[in-house]
């Protein structure tokens, strides 16, 4: 008996879905600003955070967003998070690894940093993005092959480059993330997947307030401004052939 097929719809003529974006740490600070920014630009969004209440609140507040509860620092959470991202969005064009941990608060000298505190910074800021990117690379490379483009944005910091005293755990983890991003970008060029690492600048966020409680919020960048700049960079990294694109700001 031969194989037969019930054809439902021409893939060629089916409407292209909106840009599909996943953002970690999406309920506060820069992550929440990125969720709002991409929503404003018409994207379908999945965001991840640890706290159920905040995830549910943001998902209720912003339509067309899918809230996912999970901890990027936990290996066991990664595939369940990836499953929900691709299940809800049907694929993925952009992954923003934004969730970050300072490792030790208040900030302290490396010599006063416990091993477990450095491990926590590495788990969230390096291993989390590495594992989630690997789990989603199949979906991202599929987007690239289909001409939609694929971008992974890893949020770094000037602490990844400058040896600020007391920023050891965070700075070392972000330095590792920065270099990982550079190598991965070179390795994935042939697949059409871009890996960017960008420093959004010092922002008025809860994380910054914890790290430097005495700084004047008025002197800091607003996360909304940083989110707009980052979204512009992502849009520029997507091919012109991307049928949905990111609408200009």
């Amino acid at each position, binding site marked *: 008996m*031969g194989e*037969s097929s*019930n054809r439902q719809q021409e893939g060629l003529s089916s409407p292209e879905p909106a840009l599909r974006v996943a953002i970690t740490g999406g309920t506060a600070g820069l992550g929440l600003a990125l969720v709002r920014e991409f929503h404003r630009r018409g994207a379908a969004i999945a965001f991840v955070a640890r706290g159920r209440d905040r995830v549910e609140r943001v998902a209720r507040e912003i339509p067309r967003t899918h809230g996912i509860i999970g901890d990027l620092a936990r290996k066991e959470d990664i*595939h369940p998070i990836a499953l*929900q991202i691709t*299940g809800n969005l049907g694929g993925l064009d952009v992954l923003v690894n934004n969730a970050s941990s300072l490792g030790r608060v208040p900030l302290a000298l490396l010599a006063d940093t416990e091993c477990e505190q450095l491990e926590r910074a590495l788990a969230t800021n390096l291993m989390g993005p590495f594992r989630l990117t690997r789990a989603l690379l199949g979906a991202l490379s599929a987007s690239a092959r289909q001409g939609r483009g694929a971008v992974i944005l890893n949020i770094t910091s000037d602490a990844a480059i400058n040896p600020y005293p007391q920023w050891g755990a965070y700075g070392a983890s972000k330095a590792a993330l920065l270099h990982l991003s550079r190598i991965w970008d070179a390795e994935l060029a042939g697949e059409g997947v871009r890996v960017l690492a960008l420093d959004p600048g010092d922002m008025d966020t809860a994380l910054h307030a914890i790290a430097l409680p005495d700084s004047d919020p008025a002197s800091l960048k607003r996360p909304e401004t940083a989110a707009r700049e980052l979204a512009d960079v992502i849009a520029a990294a997507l091919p012109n052939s991307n049928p949905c694109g990111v609408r200009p700001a």
Partner: protein
Amino acid sequence: MIAESRPVQRPPEARLLAIDAAGRMRQLRRADFVTMLRSGDLVIANDAATLPASLHGTHVGTNTAIEVRLAGWPSSTLGDPRRIHTIVFGAGDYRQRTEDRLPPPVLHPGDRLALGPLSARIETLLGHPRLVALGFEGPRDAIWAGLASHGKPIQYTHVPTPLALWDVWTPIAGPPVAFEAPSAGFALDWQSIVAMRARDIVFAALTHAAGISSTGDPELDNLLPFDEPYSIPAATAVAIRAARDRGSRIVAIGTTVVRALEAAGAPDGIVRAENGVATGRISAGTRLRVVDALLTGAHEPGTSHHALLGAFLDEAMLRRADAELAENQYRTHEFGDSVLIERGIGSSQLAHALCRAEKIA
């Protein structure tokens, strides 16, 4: 903290039996399978990610422990988790052979199942007392969250420790629509894709919702494979046309890719970009229209996967291959060894050759 699990998917010593169109057999390391490809070949893999398709819970009406295994999509709803065709088992788990499992209570439409955080209702029976259309309640986000937190991959008695999702996702896994792993894809890694590109071998993918492979019930197994929805991207259809035009081979990674491409293929071997449903079996009588070679597991005679090989090899050749695999103790399970089979020169390939000759003339 950093150590990953054992390399279940890619045993470094995995072997490959390669059989060419003339029936010559050669044994090599599976890691070297790219060396068996030719410049210009188009390699197509299935990028479906595997669902955590085994869910334990309770049949609410009788308060009986059950396990459900998600097994197939209703024809037109690839990836919509609100309605899934499901096989229901009684109490017990994968440590027992599926053949030895207790039956579930007698099932009726309207019965409710409590599956961890998920609540589901039997909508209809599907021609067998244990095969049902299951409707999950609640919004899609919540169903995905429930599957992610409560579901486990379907387990195999030959794998001693429980499989996690990372064990059953291939490196290229994307949309979570497969009920069991498209396991031929375990032969791939990103280096192999780089190696293909370096030799002008084109890599493409489609998404095919690989269904459950075995139910432990002979009556149900007779219904396998279930109808399987697939999606062929425009870029893959274009790549197939280009490969045909230059006279290159189409190499399928896995039987699911063969099912999708042969379902979508026109008699002239042209494949359209489409979402469709593969129905029926491919076997010795099937005339292949699209696929020229297949990388797949070492399948045991009597399975539907093995029957599919009959479309590539004539009966005598298939018996020779089986003997070679048995003699060399190839591992036949999902995480075992592989075979690469080039379709024998048959009428359809001659037809292609003649078509091309006419074009050139």
